[in-house]
């Protein structure tokens, strides 16, 4: 496998996870950019543990995910039922805070970051294959859990909160608990993505976790369609991939292209490319075929 292909596939998986981590709390209408901070924290945590204490990959992965969940849970106690703007600002605060700490504290490598994170397997090719398998297994698991959520009573309750909180409350839904659950889950996914990122890139630096990352993930989510999980899944590989095949001169303009795309989609088709009726139709087509057989 060529290095380019490996990076393309691996980073696509990271973007899918990160877009989903924004999708999950957006089910109740909250833009929880906190997950980018979780990603940074867990990425640095993974790098330090793997280098200084020689923790094995699996342990780091589990601990990094739990670390994300823990931070997310603590914060969600305060903003579980906060309005969207307040959640956005809390996210920004944590990103600034994380960035400032990793830039200024000597132990975290300062502006240059941390290098030479160990491979999981000694042979380069094996290492790459393993990381890809793990990354896509995580995508699969997360996607599976999200589908289960979306097709359950919890998912319906979340949709009701998105439309109107008073409405959801009238069915007996605890809005704060639901927000806390989703934020914690999203932060765990962010942490998971951070650990994977560390091991895939084998280096971490403050410039990796910028506001660009928010912009890219948001574009993937809103262009793909925020009403289902499939939007981000489809948009991530395409949006991340197409700048790579553009002529060299245009490649560096990808953020401009993302921004324009985001605006155009929101103005023309606010619910994004993939909508729930579309998914339903495909599902019924598939199950129809199964019945015939």
């Amino acid at each position, binding site marked *: 496998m060529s290095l380019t292909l490996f990076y393309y596939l691996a980073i696509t998986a990271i973007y899918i996870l990160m877009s989903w981590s924004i999708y999950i709390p957006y089910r109740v*209408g909250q*833009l929880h950019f906190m997950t980018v901070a979780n990603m940074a924290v867990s990425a640095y945590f993974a790098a330090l543990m793997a280098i200084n204490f020689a923790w094995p990959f699996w342990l780091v992965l589990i601990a990094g995910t739990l670390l994300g969940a823990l931070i997310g849970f603590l914060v969600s106690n*305060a*903003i579980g039922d*906060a*309005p*969207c*703007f*307040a959640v*956005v*600002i*809390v996210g*920004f*605060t944590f990103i*600034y*805070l994380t*960035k*400032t*700490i990793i*830039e*200024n504290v000597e132990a975290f490598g300062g502006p240059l970051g941390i290098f030479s994170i160990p491979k999981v397997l000694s042979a380069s090719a094996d290492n790459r294959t393993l990381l890809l398998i793990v990354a896509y297994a995580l995508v699969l698991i997360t996607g599976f859990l999200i589908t289960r959520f979306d097709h359950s009573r919890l998912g319906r309750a979340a949709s009701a909160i998105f439309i109107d909180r008073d409405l959801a409350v009238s069915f007996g839904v605890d809005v704060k608990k639901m927000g806390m659950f989703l934020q914690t889950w999203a932060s765990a996914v962010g942490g998971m993505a951070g650990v994977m990122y560390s091991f895939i890139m084998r280096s971490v630096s403050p410039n990796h976790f910028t*506001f*660009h990352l*928010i*912009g890219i993930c*948001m*574009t993937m989510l*809103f262009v793909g369609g925020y009403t289902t999980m499939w939007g981000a899944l489809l948009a991530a590989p395409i949006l991340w991939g197409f700048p790579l095949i553009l002529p060299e001169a245009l490649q*560096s*303009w990808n*953020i*401009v292209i*993302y*921004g*324009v795309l*985001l*605006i155009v989609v*929101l*103005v023309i088709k*606010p619910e994004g490319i993939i909508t729930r009726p579309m998914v339903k139709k495909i599902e019924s087509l598939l199950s129809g075929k199964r019945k015939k057989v």
Partner: protein
Amino acid sequence: MEILIAQIFNGLSIGSIYVLLVTGFNLLLLVAMIIHFSFPVVVVFSMYISWVVMTLTGSVTLGVVGGIASAIIVNMITAPMFQHIMKDRGSVDINATMVISMGMGMVITDILSHTFNQGFPIAFPDALTGNDQGALISVGLVSISRGQVLTLVIGVLFVAFLFWLLYKTRAGRAFRAIAEDPNGAKLVGIPLLKTGFQSYALTGILGGVTAVLMAVLLGSASAGLGDQLGHKVLAVSIIAGLGNLTGGLIIGLLLGILEAIIQGYLAGSWSNAIAFIVMLVVILAKPKGVFGSKL
């Protein structure tokens, strides 16, 4: 002690920039009902245009005019986009305007970081900033530059002008009526669309003036400046209470002073983070803002 006095003065001048930006943000929020998160990015864009005009023509006056004009033009061009998603006001999620505005910010910031000056930070000529003339007042460690005084004076005058416009004129009355009750304003015969466009033009002028003042005060600009200011403006307006003009004024100045004091005593980029932590605490303690939301 002298450091403290010097930094308070520094803080007041940077604070008056925050106040101008927050006032523009709040005006758009109140009258046009949009969360124009990237308003400060437009302002930084105008700084760049002003710089381009200055370097091309060598004239400071033309640069100032160009900067102000560009802010008005950008605001007026992007207005229809926001008006489109606000067509049936109320039924549209106000978050959508925030996301669109973020998209706009992404585009402008990236264009700035690619095209002008090959993406390097720009520096404004001394003829504008007056840095070559040295400090205006200098007592011991306290030294106050021409730019600082200019920013503070014009900032205060401009905010005073805005308040006069809002509270004493026909257009301002219409703005306030729409802010309080769009439907009621419609019923007394205030044209919503037209007044909305007026508010875009007004915030455009406000943005242009702010851009020039920032050029004078900071003397330089970089592509990332807009994002940073954007986050701060959103934070200040949330803490003051969304749409609360007087609250924005007070919190904006306080934030400027707080940051300046931290900068006086702590090295590195800590001032940003500490300012945000203070804001975080306030948000968690008072989710509706210190002075109450006007939304």
